[in-house]
């Protein structure tokens, strides 16, 4: 398989499963995507969609009972199967991650300075003094007032929004090529959320860094990403550009997610559209389309396993009712005709789009 030189991260057929007392649970079930240099990609889905486990697997941070298979190539280098030592050469340096809860991700016993200089000294072999100056500069870049003063403080002396800025500054220390942000603003107030989103938007414009933003709320990423992947029950159900997803959503789940956002900019104050039922129980998924039992448009045909279709423009959709006619180009892999795919539908080939 040839590697597109423009792709910073190429993920192929990624599966994550967990060994639990109730048996094996597949959290991510064959996901493909790529991130190009400088691009911002949002991965959207509910709890249990596998969005966080997907990136944790890429980062080599799965819980002990978790295992991942498939391929994740970062700058052409295979991350799957790397030892912790090898991963540590990449993580924090070219590939950085910030987590949802800024309080639990910072060490409460160490000053911000200690936590920030450690990274720069380790990866960039800076002296303490250089590392400190660099850390102050990063804090300034994320708009923390009086960075020289504040760097000496402990995490509890910062507000939630400021802590998340510190986390972002830490992620930026080694000027990574790819920053993964897992729900960076979910635990914050809307006002602070707006500030953090704006900050990410500015970073995206100013730097060459690629960003993966993970969220359960489509609205949060509306003006800060280039492309969007929507996940449900461990699989990609739709992907496309930001305009595709917001102005022309095709999968019923994406449409449901969009419609359930309470809006200030729409007239009327009636019933909100809600997606029926509960986030998927991965151990009791319906046969065929995993979203079938919550879908308002479900038909008899939905008991067949839907393939993931990708058109020439790179849009993809996993709704069997949305299958366009004619030839479909699976742009990342190979060309396949509808007839060939039809033969596969119903054979239980859930991962057909990942087969080489």
């Amino acid at each position, binding site marked *: 398989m040839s590697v597109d030189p423009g792709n910073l991260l190429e993920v192929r057929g990624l599966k994550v499963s967990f060994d639990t007392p109730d048996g094996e649970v597949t959290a991510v079930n064959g996901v493909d995507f790529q991130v190009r240099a400088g691009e911002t990609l949002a991965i959207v889905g*509910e*709890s249990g969609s596998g969005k966080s486990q997907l990136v944790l697997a890429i980062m080599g941070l799965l819980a002990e009972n978790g295992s991942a298979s498939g391929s994740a190539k970062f700058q052409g280098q295979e991350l799957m199967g790397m030892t912790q030592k090898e991963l540590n050469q990449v993580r924090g340096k070219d590939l950085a991650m910030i987590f949802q809860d800024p309080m639990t991700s910072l060490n409460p016993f160490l000053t911000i300075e200690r936590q920030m200089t450690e990274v720069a000294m380790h990866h960039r072999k800076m002296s303490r003094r250089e590392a400190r100056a660099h850390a102050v500069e990063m804090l300034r870049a994320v708009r923390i*007032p009086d960075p020289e003063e504040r760097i000496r403080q402990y995490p509890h002396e910062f*507000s*939630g*929004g*400021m802590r998340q800025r510190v986390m972002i500054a830490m992620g930026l220390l080694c000027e990574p090529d790819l920053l993964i942000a897992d729900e960076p603003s979910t635990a914050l*107030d*809307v*006002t*602070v*959320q*707006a*500030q953090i*989103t*704006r900050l990410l*938007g500015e970073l995206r414009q100013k730097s060459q860094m690629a960003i993966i933003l993970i969220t*359960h*709320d*489509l*609205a*949060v990423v*509306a*003006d800060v990403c280039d492309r969007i992947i929507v996940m449900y029950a461990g699989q990609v159900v739709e992907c496309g550009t*930001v*305009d595709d997803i*917001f102005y022309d959503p095709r999968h019923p789940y994406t449409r*449901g*997610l*969009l419609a*359930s*956002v*309470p*809006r*200030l*900019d*729409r*007239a*009327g*104050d*009636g*019933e*909100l*559209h*809600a*997606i*029926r039922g*509960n*986030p998927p129980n991965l151990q009791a998924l319906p046969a065929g389309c995993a979203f079938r039992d919550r879908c308002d448009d479900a038909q008899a045909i939905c008991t067949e396993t839907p393939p993931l279709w990708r058109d020439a423009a790179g849009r993809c959709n996993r709704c069997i009712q949305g299958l366009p006619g004619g030839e479909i180009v699976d742009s990342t892999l190979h060309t396949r005709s509808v007839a060939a795919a039809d033969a596969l539908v119903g054979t239980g080939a859930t991962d057909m789009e990942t087969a080489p």
Partner: protein
Amino acid sequence: MTDPVLRVQDLTLHYHSDGGNLWQRRKRVLRAVDGVSFDLAAGETLGIVGESGSGKSTLARAILGLAKPQRGRVLWMGEDLTRLGHEELRLKRKEIQIVFQDPVASLNPRMTAGAIIGEPLSTFYPHMEQLQIEERTRGMMKMVGLLPNQINRYPHEFSGGQCQRIGIARSLVLNPKLLICDEPVSALDVSIQAQIINLLRDLQKKLGLALIFIAHDLSVVKHISDRVMVMYMGRSMELGQKQALYSRPLHPYTSALMKSVPVPDPKLAHKLRQDLWLKGDMPSPFQPPKGCIFHTRCPFAVNRCQADVPAMRRLGQGDWVACHRAEELDLSIGLPAL
């Protein structure tokens, strides 16, 4: 408007802290709720919106008698709850109930859903037959959209949204007249938030409840409230009819909150983000700004705002606002009218 069932007058609740420093003991005062007043009619829904630290949860606790205010009154059907003794107050909780933010943490993991929902019945009606309690519990489960045959399941067997339904069923099992929902949806997925908001709306209509719905997001309360109150650092900044407040906010802070709401429309979101002038964090609550408490973050602040505390006043026949410049500012944010 019919006579209010709840009348909160000049409610003030300060927390005192000794500063935490052993060598420099000085008393510090945190004004969690500072002179808040509002009325609530039977069957009416009031949305209370503000950032963390705005005092909205403390206000809820004070109404329930879970925190003792220093000043002000909480008149429930004409009776001042702040003057009641422990036992009298406990009995009032048959009429006033609360739903908490974190649906999973607020349920006892060792109790079944049925036991959680039925517990208030056995507490308040010790002579009630077990069979009767179970029957009522099943009825409640059905009403909030749970399956009655899930009665013997434990909280961990339910999703977050279902746990919140259990919390709602428990709070309604005594047939209260007032339900206070403290951020009931902020811990839930967006798709599930809508279910819970719709459920609360339906129940409110069906049962004729008075409802206080607390959130940090103006868009969430829009779908459920008749009136909305915006709080900042313990004070009420604006209180108005929903229609008016959303189409023409009177307080700069209200309009900033509106611009912060995430909008699932890239072009509009970009525009709102460009226009958002609210910067920085809330000041330390131990050293609140003098004058208008919002003036440090307000681009419209003039000298007067630094000196005088704006009183909560009514503009004409309309809404209440605590801003010196409410008449002169046009703060509509240009969204389609409601």
